[in-house]
């Protein structure tokens, strides 16, 4: 797009696509929904957020994600996209400005790998700690600690997991910030001890110092009360 031979050339298909309304079906406490919201914000994409009551799912949600019936769902125009990773890749490809993924295929593969590792290793921890007690809970916490060791060895490339700018890995790792902090407070522990994990702690500080990142965090007190109610 741009001026060419004195004429302003439009890529109508892209423009039309990009101008279609964007809606995000979500739930306030969900780290998955947060990830999608953050990606949209980082790209400067305007969207309408629609809060779902997960105990009473809307017809729109059931229609847009009939298979899993879960949030987040991104609806672009009339096209629904589900599963946070799939949504993020869709956002990246549809609105390429402010890249969240590197261009080189090998770097992209590495990005996808760490993004998935974080999701596979830490999200279940949140669930397990909330749902279990005693030995099982301790086991979940130990596994998280092992995963943190692996992450610090392999993941951090600089200020952020993406290097000097945020990438999908940082977005994936957002679950390590407020969710882990608040859960830790609720059970009286600190998941990410700054002495044990200085690099990851400083990543959290760097990451959460960004306004866009903080803006869409769930309210701390509300999240704490919610976690406590589940324990």
């Amino acid at each position, binding site marked *: 797009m741009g001026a060419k031979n004195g004429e302003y050339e439009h890529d109508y298909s892209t423009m039309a*696509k990009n101008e279609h309304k964007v809606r995000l079906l979500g739930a306030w406490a969900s780290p998955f929904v947060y990830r999608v919201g953050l990606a949209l914000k980082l790209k400067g994409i305007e969207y309408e957020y629609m809060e779902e009551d997960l105990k009473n799912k809307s017809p729109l949600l059931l229609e847009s994600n009939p*298979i899993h019936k879960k949030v987040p769902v991104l609806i*672009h125009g009339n*096209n629904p*996209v*589900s*599963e946070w*990773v*799939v*949504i993020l*890749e*869709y956002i990246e*490809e*549809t609105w390429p400005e402010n890249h969240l993924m590197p261009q080189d*295929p*090998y770097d*992209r*593969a*590495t990005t*996808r*790998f760490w993004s*998935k*590792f974080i999701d596979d290793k830490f999200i279940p921890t949140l669930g397990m700690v909330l749902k279990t007690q005693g030995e099982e809970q301790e086991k979940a916490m130990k596994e998280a600690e092992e995963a943190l060791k*692996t992450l610090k060895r*392999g993941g951090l490339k600089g200020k952020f997991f993406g290097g000097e700018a945020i990438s999908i890995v940082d977005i994936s790792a957002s679950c390590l910030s407020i969710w882990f902090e608040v859960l830790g407070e609720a059970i009286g522990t600190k998941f990410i001890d700054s002495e044990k994990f200085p690099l990851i702690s400083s990543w959290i500080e760097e990451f959460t110092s960004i306004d866009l990142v903080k803006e869409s965090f769930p309210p701390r007190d509300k999240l704490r009360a919610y976690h406590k109610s589940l324990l």
Partner: protein
Amino acid sequence: MGGEVVLLDFWASPFGMRARIALAEKGVKYEYREENLANKGELLLKSNPVYKKIPVLIHDGKSLSESLIIVQYIDEVWKNPPLLPEDAYERAVARFWADFADKKLYDSGTKIWKSKGEAQASAVKEFIENLKILEGALGDEPFFGGEKLGFVDVMVVPFVCWFHAYEVHGGFSVAAECPKIDAWAKRCMERESVSKALQDPEKILEFVGFLKKKYGVE
């Protein structure tokens, strides 16, 4: 595009088969190395220190793991023929179904041979339900990729050689429950990339027997 390509794999792994099919579709020459999963080699442990699993693709000395990531890498480096569609929304749909196959087919299939009695019956029901959902996604197209084999076909078809083992242990028939999937499977097998990558279902059945003993499921 140049550079040596090595695939660390295990003959029966549907995840490894995905990589084999993708490489074959792209006409990429590579060295296949069979791993002994009971005694993992140094190269495997070094190139996938996080999970220590196969498949691992080593391209020009750089290693990657996780079949979904490997297949996407192959598609991005060797562009023809493309496996993922060009349109961003269609790509999202393809990725969704690949994710569905990962989350729903393999786990429920494994449960079938790993369990007994009611748990097994419930696993069979779940597997058939999931397969029917996939069948719905296929619709009346010859492949998930439309006219030609695509990303979702590559991700799902390896499970086909495991169907026989699931059927025998679970007491059901894929052809009876999901005739379109059965027809799709046969269509895929007509492609050399698929027929060469997939294993003889009888050998997989035998392998499952060995696994059952190993896991003490009798």
